[in-house]
């Protein structure tokens, strides 16, 4: 009994890496994921994953083959870049000059936030100054009226 179990275990132990060497079952999601990052050369605004053209179909087949043969997703993408140039990627890789395309929009948004903050501060400061210069300009509300207002507001909610 124990020998049988040992044989079985060793078969499994040997079989495991062997199974990986053969045609690995390819994860279709992974194929789609890689295809979604490549530009279809025929319908040029669509990704290889989305494009209904025959060329895109064939390219998906090649992605599937390469993944099954053991390539990593990075290697598959590198293969296509090697044959078609950087242009085949739907978004430029984040290196060198191409960093700009990723950085500039966020930098612009950040700069905009700074400008908006600055403008709001100037507006609030101006209001504070105006109030300081003319403190008695508007009549204050006396306490009784204020409480009445609050009470009526609360009633509206119920």
């Amino acid at each position: 009994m124990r020998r049988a179990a040992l044989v079985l275990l060793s078969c499994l132990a040997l079989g495991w890496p062997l199974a990986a060497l053969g045609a690995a079952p390819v994860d279709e999601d992974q194929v789609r994921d890689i295809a979604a990052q490549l530009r279809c050369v025929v319908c040029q605004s669509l990704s290889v994953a989305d494009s209904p053209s025959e060329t895109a179909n064939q390219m998906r087949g090649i992605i599937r083959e390469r993944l099954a043969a053991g390539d990593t997703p990075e290697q598959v993408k590198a293969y296509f870049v090697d044959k078609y140039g950087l242009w085949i990627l739907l978004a430029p890789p984040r290196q060198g000059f191409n960093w700009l395309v990723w950085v500039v929009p966020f930098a612009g948004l950040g700069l905009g936030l700074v400008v908006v903050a600055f403008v709001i501060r100037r507006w609030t400061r101006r209001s504070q100054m105006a109030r300081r210069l003319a403190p008695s300009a508007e009549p204050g509300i006396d306490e009784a009226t204020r409480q009445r207002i609050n009470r009526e507001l609360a009633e509206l909610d119920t």
Partner: protein
Amino acid sequence: MPIPEIGYGATVTALVLALYGSFAAAVGAWTGRPGLGRSSERAAIGVWVLITCGMLLMVYAFLTFDFSVRYVANNTNRGTPFYYRITALWGALEGSIILWAWMLSLYTLIVVVQYRRRHSVFYPWVVAVLLGVLAFFLLVMTIPAPPFQRLAPVPPDGRGLNPLLEDSGMITHPLALYLGFTGFTVPFAFAIAALVTGRIGDEWITITRRWTIVAWYFLSLGLLIGGWWSYHVLGWGGYWAWDPVENAAFMPWLTGTALLHSVMVQERRRMLKLWNLGLIILTFGLTLFGTFLTRSGIIGSVHAFTQGAVGQFFLGFLAVVLLGSFSLLAWRLEQLRAQGELDSVLSRESAFLLNNLFLVAAAFTVFFGTVFPLLSEALRGVKVSVGAPFFNLVNIPIFLGLLLLMGVGPLIAWRRASAENLKRNFVKPVLAGIVAAALLRLGGVGNVLVLTCMGLVVFVTGTMVLDFWRAARARRRSGDGWRAATVGLLMRQNRRYGGFIVHLGVLVIALGVAGSQAWSVQTEATLERGQAVELAGYKVRFDTLRASEESNHFKVTGTFTVSNGQEALTRLYPAKKFYPQEQTPIAYVDYRLGVLEDLYLVLGDFGRDGSYATVKVQVNRMVSWLWLGGLVLTLGTLVAILPDRRRVG
């Protein structure tokens, strides 16, 4: 009838009239001679008449198969169905310019008729600008892209319409889109008039409020119809590809939305005058940029119909418009100095500022991504491409931020929001949003973006419902009946609640986008006769293949029976259409639309004897919500532009 010559003559005459009218109006206003002003009005009317005649002439040429007109020969043939022969008018570059010019001349006519007795200070300058822009488009129709060109010898048959354009979407998409684009010319003209005359207060905004809303609406409609067309014609199951030409139409929509909001700050608080003027100039500039991109061929795109020197004309005009308008702005800079005052950072003004920031940042992102390939090539000689992964990554956070602001903005107080104000208006909706997101999470939704989007949608809906409910209840308390309290309230405060309904429409669209991205599934299978493939509870069985000869193409149709396990639901007929003038066959998608999900079939490869067929099956979820959202937008816009019922005193 020598149509090419008559049409060309009409175009040249219209160009001369438009140039004359523009100068006459400007000179008349400058020197104070009303005679010139009236003359320019007549010129404007004349231009409209001439362009209308030209358009009708071209349609007549299409209907009578007059292949002596080159445009007709290039875009139809004897097999083109009747209605497509009319809509082929705007199927290619030259004709699209006719359509643009005609709409612009129509708007000019409306302005002339509506405002000739009012706003006498602005009016001549507005006419001058409108006729000047018209003159440019007529110039394009005269020199680089004349639609009325004679083709000799006259061919026996034409080339035919691009088959992708033989579709109902093709009829309506350019109409809506161009109505939107050209619509922004009118507020732009008023803004220039304001700058020239120095009356840079709120006048130009108050006058053009409805124009801006209507132009914005048509642009939104045009974008949605474009998405619908892409969805049901192109066969990939998507509605937006971040294609450069799509982006070109999206950018003015973004800045136009920003303008719609920031003018409210100027109306209420007299602030942001400089910003609003700059924004309308930018929006109009972006509409020109959009047509430039489509027609110049400098950035590759599926949509682009490019030709010769047209692009250079457009770039030249864009340069004149931008440099001229911004120079006027710079000239008047001192008078536009802000006098804004704010009591607290937490206020509606701040919310509007953030709203504008996000929208303009999104427009900038789209612009940068669209021209980056050009930049990369100019500076480094390396061709790269920028597509969906980039645009999605950068824009999604911005749009989520805008959703949040949509809930906060309408309810937060002007000038200063007190703690009570915040508590009253936001605690319940925020809780509702969090609960909704939690429920979805428990229900199995894992995608963080989808959860955030759904939570925000519930939050925003909550704020709107709460606000409307409180206001209606207050009216009930003071004695109104149910109808007056609800419908009456809607009519009385139509701007506010029209805006709410428009926001609701945007929310529905947001839900559709989130749902379709997260939950759509697809598969592909090669089936023999009688075999079926299953997906998401549907069983799609291949029955037969049938070939047929249509008027201008050859069609192979597959019959597929769809059932959901128990009963047959429907039969779908996806097909492949073979047009003689096209290299590859065009897929004809068939689908079964539903509120929650659409079943979508695309026919792929097939055996000549009909023994097998490859079919791509997609279950696209919540895509219909985009079109439903469009309907809600329409309702909201109608409510918002109703005449004001409030009377003072």
